[in-house]
C-alpha cells in the first residue's frame, strides 16, 4: 500500500528515524512547507528559534560537541543559507557532526537568479564533508539517511542538504532505511598489523616517550583507552585545545595543554622526547610553532582516522590509520609495561617556573583589578570542577582553556581551527539544551559577545540556563596583546567602547551581576550558581592583561615567552 506524504513531511519523518529530538532553525520563504509540517511534529521535535542563522549553527555545534550526536540546523535559502556558512566552515575544521538543511528555490528556477537563490552547493562544497541538492521528494529519506551516516562516522563533519521547494511539496511513498554503507567511503578502515607492530617496537625501545592528543580521543570515545595506554607505558601526555577534558585534569600523567599558549612542560618536552605519539590531532600551526624545529629529535607515531592528516605537516616514522579507541587498545595490549621515573620527573622544573612566573601571579594576585585567570579559576572551583566550559575566541578563550579543570570528558567547547569570534554564546546555548542537567559556563570577551549577542533572545524565549561570564577588558584583547608585543604598541582599532551590558541583559530578562572588583567576585558567584537561571556576569578585568606563556609566531615550540620581557630558560 502506498503511503504518500510530502517531501516536507518526509524530512521530519526521516529526522525522527535518525533519533532527532532537537533542531535549531529560522524560517523563510523557501523552507515554509517544512515549517508548516513542523506544526504536526511539535510534540516529538523541539525546534529552537534562534535570532540569526549563525546562532543556529553554532548552537548545533555546541549541541553536537557535548552530546556526540549530530546537531541539526534548518534555515531558508539565499541569506539564510549564507548566514550559516561561517559555522559550516568551523564545524569542518573542528570535525563537528552537523546536518544543515537549507531551503532552495524550485528546480525550475535554479540558475535563474531567482529571489533568494544562492548556489549553496557551490558555496558549501569546499567547507562541508558532503553536500547534496534534494530535487525530488523521493530522494528525501535517502539523502537524510546518508547525511547522518556521513556526518557522524569516520572523521565527523558538517553535511549540507539543499532542499528545493518542489521537492518539499512533491509527494513520495515514504520508506526509511538507515544508511550504513557507501562504497566510495570507508569511515573506519581495518588497522594495519604492520603499523601496529612497528609502533610497538618503537614504544618498547622508547626511553623518553611523550603523547600529544587531540579531539580524536573524544570523538572516538577513547578516553579510557588513552588512560590505560599512558598508565601501562608510564607515558606523560599533553592535550591540544580541543582535546581538553578527554583526560581528567588530575590524571597523574597529564602534563597540561600544548601549543602557543599551552603549558611550558609539554611544549618543552615535545622537543626533548625520543618517541612522540600523536593521537587524534592534526599538528595545527598553533600547536607546532615552526614546523622545521618541531620534535625533530623524535620518532613520530601518528594515529588518526583521517589518512590525509598523516604526514601532512610532520613527517612520521609510523602512521596508523584507525580510530583512537581500537588503535590504543591494540597498542596497550601488545606493548611492554614500562616505567620512566626520571623522564617524568624532568618535567618538574618547567612546571615550577611556570607556576612561579605565570600561574601564581595570574590566579592569586593580591592587588589591581581582577585578572582573567583568577576569574576562571574561581568560577570553575565554584562548580566543583564539574561544569561544561565553553569559550569564545581571544584572551578569554586561552584563559578559559588554561585555568579550567575537568573531571569528565566532553566538558570543553571552543572554536579551535577556525577561531570564530561569536561562537561562544550560541555554542553554550546548544550545549545547555543538549545537557540541561549540567552547569554550562561561557567565558566570552566584550568583542566576541557582541558578534552574536542577539541570541540573548533565544535564551529568553527558551529559558536556557547558561552562565555567561563576560571577561570585560574594554579591548579586543588578543589583538591588543599582539600589537603590544609585535607591532610596537600601535593600537590600531582594538579599543572598544562598550555598551551597558546590564541594560541589555535587562531588556531580555536575563539577570546581570556586575563584578567591578575582587571583593565582589565570590558573592557574585554564589548568587550566579544559586539556581539554574541564565545569568550574565559582567566582570571588569585588568585592561592590559596578557596571556602567557606565549610561543610567538615564527618561533619554535621550545622558544617560550614567560612574561612580556623574559624567555623561558
Amino acid at each position: 500500500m502506498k503511503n504518500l506524504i510530502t517531501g516536507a513531511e518526509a524530512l521530519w519523518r526521516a529526522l525522527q528515524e535518525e533519533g532527532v529530538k532537537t533542531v535549531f532553525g529560522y524560517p523563510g520563504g523557501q523552507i515554509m512547507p517544512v515549517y508548516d509540517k513542523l506544526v504536526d511534529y511539535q510534540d516529538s521535535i523541539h525546534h529552537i528559534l534562534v535570532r540569526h542563522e549563525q546562532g543556529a549553527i553554532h548552537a548545533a555545534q555546541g549541541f553536537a560537541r557535548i552530546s556526540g550526536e549530530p546537531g541539526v540546523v534548518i534555515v531558508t535559502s539565499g541569506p539564510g543559507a549564507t548566514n550559516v556558512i561561517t559555522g559550516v566552515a568551523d564545524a569542518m575544521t573542528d570535525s563537528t557532526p552537523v546536518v544543515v538543511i537549507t531551503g532552495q528555490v524550485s528546480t525550475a528556477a535554479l540558475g535563474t537568479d531567482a529571489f533568494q537563490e544562492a548556489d549553496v552547493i557551490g558555496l558549501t562544497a569546499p567547507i562541508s564533508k558532503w553536500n547534496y541538492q534534494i530535487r525530488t521528494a523521493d530522494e528525501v529519506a535517502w539523502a537524510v539517511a546518508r547525511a547522518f551516516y556521513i556526518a557522524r562516522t569516520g572523521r565527523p563533519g558538517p553535511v549540507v542538504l539543499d532542499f528545493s521547494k518542489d521537492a518539499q511539496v512533491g509527494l513520495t511513498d515514504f520508506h526509511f532505511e538507515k544508511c550504513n554503507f557507501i562504497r566510495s567511503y570507508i569511515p573506519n578502515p581495518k588497522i594495519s598489523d604492520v603499523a601496529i607492530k612497528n609502533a610497538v617496537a618503537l614504544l618498547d625501545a622508547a626511553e623518553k616517550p611523550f603523547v600529544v592528543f587531540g579531539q580524536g580521543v573524544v570523538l572516538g570515545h577513547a578516553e579510557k583507552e588513552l588512560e590505560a595506554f599512558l598508565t601501562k607505558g608510564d607515558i606523560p601526555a599533553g592535550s591540544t585545545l580541543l582535546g581538553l577534558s578527554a583526560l581528567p585534569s588530575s590524571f597523574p600523567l597529564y602534563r597540561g595543554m600544548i601549543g602557543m599558549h599551552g603549558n611550558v612542560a609539554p611544549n618543552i618536552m615535545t622537543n626533548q622526547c625520543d618517541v612522540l605519539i600523536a593521537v587524534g590531532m592534526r599538528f595545527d600551526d598553533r600547536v607546532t610553532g615552526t614546523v622545521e624545529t618541531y620534535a625533530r629529535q623524535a620518532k613520530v607515531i601518528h594515529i588518526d582516522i583521517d589518512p590525509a592528516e598523516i604526514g601532512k605537516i610532520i613527517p612520521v616514522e609510523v602512521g596508523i590509520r584507525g580510530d583512537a579507541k581500537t588503535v590504543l587498545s591494540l597498542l596497550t595490549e601488545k606493548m611492554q609495561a614500562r616505567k620512566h621515573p626520571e623522564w617524568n620527573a624532568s618535567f618538574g622544573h618547567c612546571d615550577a617556573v611556570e607556576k612561579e612566573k605565570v600561574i601564581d601571579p595570574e590566579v592569586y594576585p593580591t592587588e589591581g583589578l581582577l585578572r582573567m585567570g583568577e576569574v576562571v579559576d574561581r568560577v570553575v572551583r565554584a562548580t566543583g570542577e564539574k561544569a561544561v566550559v565553553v569559550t569564545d575566541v581571544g584572551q578569554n578563550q586561552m584563559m578559559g582553556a588554561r585555568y579550567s579543570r575537568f573531571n569528565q570528558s566532553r566538558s570543553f567547547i571552543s572554536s579551535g581551527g577556525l577561531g570564530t569570534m561569536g561562537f561562544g554564546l550560541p555554542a553554550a546555548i546548544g550545549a545547555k539544551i543538549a545537557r540541561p542537567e549540567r552547569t554550562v559556563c561561557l567565558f566570552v570577551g566584550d568583542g566576541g559577545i557582541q558578534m552574536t549577542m542577539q541570541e540573548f533572545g533565544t535564551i529568553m524565549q527558551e529559558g536556557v540556563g547558561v552562565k555567561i561570564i563576560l571577561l570585560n577588558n574594554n579591548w579586543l584583547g588578543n589583538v591588543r596583546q599582539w600589537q603590544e608585543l609585535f607591532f610596537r604598541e600601535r593600537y590600531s582599532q582594538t579599543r572598544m567602547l562598550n555598551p551597558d551590558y546590564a541594560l541589555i541583559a535587562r531588556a531580555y530578562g536575563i539577570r546581570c551581576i556586575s563584578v567591578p572588583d575582587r571583593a565582589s567576585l565570590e558573592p557574585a558567584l554564589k548568587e550566579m550558581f544559586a539556581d539554574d537561571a541564565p545569568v550574565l556576569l559582567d566582570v571588569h578585568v585588568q585592561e592590559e592583561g596578557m596571556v602567557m606563556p606565549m610561543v610567538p609566531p615564527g618561533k619554535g615550540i621550545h622558544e617560550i615567552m614567560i612574561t612580556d620581557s623574559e624567555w623561558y630558560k
Partner: protein
Amino acid sequence: MENPVKEYTVTIYTENQIGLLSQITNVFTRHGLSIWSLSAGATSMEGVHNITIVTAGTEKKVKESVQQIEKRVDVIKAFFYTADKIVYRELCLYKVSTAALMEYGNIEDLLNRYHARIVEMNKVFTIIQKTGYSNETASLHDELKDVGVLQFVRSGRIAVSRAEQEPVFKFLRKREKEKNQQTN
C-alpha cells in the same frame, strides 16, 4: 633539489554525482596546482566515472592533493603517476585549407610519418586527426605551418597505468563483498 617539480598524471574514479568535478578542481586550486589538461568520462563500470588531470608540482603537494580528493565521500579512488608509470595519449584535430593542402604535395608521406589521418575533407577544409604525445602533436602542428592551420584543438590526456589491473576494480569488488557481509 629535495623536492623537484615534476609532471604528474592524476587519475580519479568517482561516483556520478553532480558538482563533483568542481570539488576536485577546487582542491587543485587550493593547493596552488594548475591543471594542464583535464578529461572526464564514463568508464566501463556502470555509474563509475573517470577523471584524468595533468598537473605539475612537487610529489608532496600532489600527494596531499590526491589524498584530499580521495577524502571526498563520492570519490572512489584517486591515484597519481609520473609519466613512466602510465601509457597515455592525447587527441588532436587540425583544420587546414583543402586547397593549400593540395598545393603542399607530399601529404601522404607527412601523414604516414605522424600516424595521422584525414577524418573529413570537403572543398573548403580538411580535418586531420592525430593521437600521441604532446611533443609529436606539436611537431606535426609545426610541419603544417606551411600549409596553414585554420584551427587546432587538443583533448585532455587519457591514461592507463602500467599495472596489470587498475586497483580500482579490485577495490570495488572488495567493497561489494563487504557490503554483502554487512547486509547479511
